[in-house]
């Protein structure tokens, strides 16, 4: 459960996801989807309840254990949240230099590979202000993947993008799942993308989990909001 002042944002939301599976969180704006991701990443604390990541309850973890837990998670923010004062290369180097014992050459290799994977191999020296919206999303995805997380949290990865670029981002996410076995939890309004990527879909409405299952199961849900969201 999570409230902001008098406003209850999340009520009794419970779901499970296995390794290598993809879950899309759907719902109208303001139903607590992004808050759910931030609770999983322990960027916020729930008012009550537990959040289990890789057999560990992240609520109330100490600084050191939280740091270890976050290495297993990658987060792609809605607007990529790249650090403005750092180049793309430096944005990716920051977590590698701080959280691993890799040498500079090894860091260079990892960054070169990850940037190439997301189609930004020639853009390492650019600052975020010089990147297009789609490039920023790719760069944010690269930074989220640079520590090879077990779980990738993506907050509206295709928002603000044209259909072709959105499909390319979805393709990159799918490759994380199929090639690396990364579990994906994706907040999205893009139903087409959800149909492409998701093994499971969860629908939130007014802070409650109103439907959970495969795309077909949710499209036949008793909940009208869930049916409408998945079929439009």
């Amino acid at each position: 459960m999570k409230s902001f002042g008098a406003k209850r944002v999340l009520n009794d939301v419970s779901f499970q996801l296995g390794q290598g599976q993809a879950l899309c969180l759907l719902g109208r704006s303001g139903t607590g989807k992004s808050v759910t991701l931030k609770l999983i990443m322990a960027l916020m604390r729930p008012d009550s309840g537990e959040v289990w990541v890789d057999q560990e309850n992240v609520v109330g973890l100490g600084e050191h254990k939280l740091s270890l837990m976050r290495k297993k998670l990658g987060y792609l923010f809605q607007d990529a949240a790249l650090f403005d004062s750092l180049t793309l290369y430096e944005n990716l180097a920051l977590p590698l230099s701080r959280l691993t014992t890799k040498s500079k050459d090894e860091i260079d290799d990892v960054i070169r590979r990850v940037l190439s994977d997301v189609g930004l191999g020639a853009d390492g020296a650019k600052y975020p202000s010089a990147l297009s919206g789609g490039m920023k999303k790719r760069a944010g995805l690269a930074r989220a993947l640079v520590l090879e997380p077990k779980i990738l949290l993506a907050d509206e990865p295709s928002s603000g993008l044209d259909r072709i670029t959105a499909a390319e981002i979805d393709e990159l996410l799918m490759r994380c799942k199929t090639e690396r076995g990364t579990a994906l939890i994706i907040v999205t309004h893009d139903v087409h993308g959800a149909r492409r990527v998701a093994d499971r879909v969860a629908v939130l409405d007014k802070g409650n989990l109103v439907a959970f299952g495969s795309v077909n199961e949710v499209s036949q849900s008793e909940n009208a909001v869930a049916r409408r969201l998945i079929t439009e």
Partner: protein
Amino acid sequence: MRWLTRLFEFVGKVGLFGLRVLVDLLRPPFEFAQLSRQLAEVGNKSLALVVVSGFALGAVMTLHTRSTLVTFGATAMIPAVQAVSFFVEIGPLVAGLLLAGRVGSGIGAVLANMRASEQIDAIESLSIDSFKFLVVPRVLACVIALPFLTLFMDFAGLLGGFLSEELSSHIAPALYLNRAFDYLQWANFVAPTLKTAVFGFIIGSVSAYFGYTTDKGAKGVGEAATNSVVVSSLLIIVADVLLIKCIFFLFPDTAI
């Protein structure tokens, strides 16, 4: 009385924020790379503003001082008056207020923008303590840079004063400097310059507080910048009064 409650609440929050800065200053890891970036931002990039302002202020002050001292036939005291007033009070206070505007607004706006665009959340998601990474280096940079910038302002003021006086009375540089430093004691110079470290702490902490804790999105960026300047400036003036009293207590000979 609600405004009084809110005032106490604000003072408490900013106080705790400043205390956290002091505690985290002593806790590893130490962000030396960030500190050097911020020193360049705060110190290097403020130098031109401080020097030009000091020069202009020095020239203007000399003109005003001359017009008053001519009445008493005491124009020979102009260099001493200039030096003592600049080193003891004008240099430190004006440098502090200028930096509150330039640096304070910058820190407030940058951190508020980072909060609004989720960059601070991104730093936390990478298991980096965002407070130590972003706030502490900025505050420390202000504390270190301000005394040095004050020195530049003081000497720029002396230079401006000299050029202004030279145009009026054709005084020689050596004579001007002799008269300037004749009445200046170390206590007039060291203690007021070091008090600007306190001003730096105020500017850094208050500005970082408004930027780091904002929750109003893009609207909060402008508010953080404005509040940083206004509150830092007010607190610098209040702190100046208190610090002068402390200086007079520690160095009674400097009490004018």
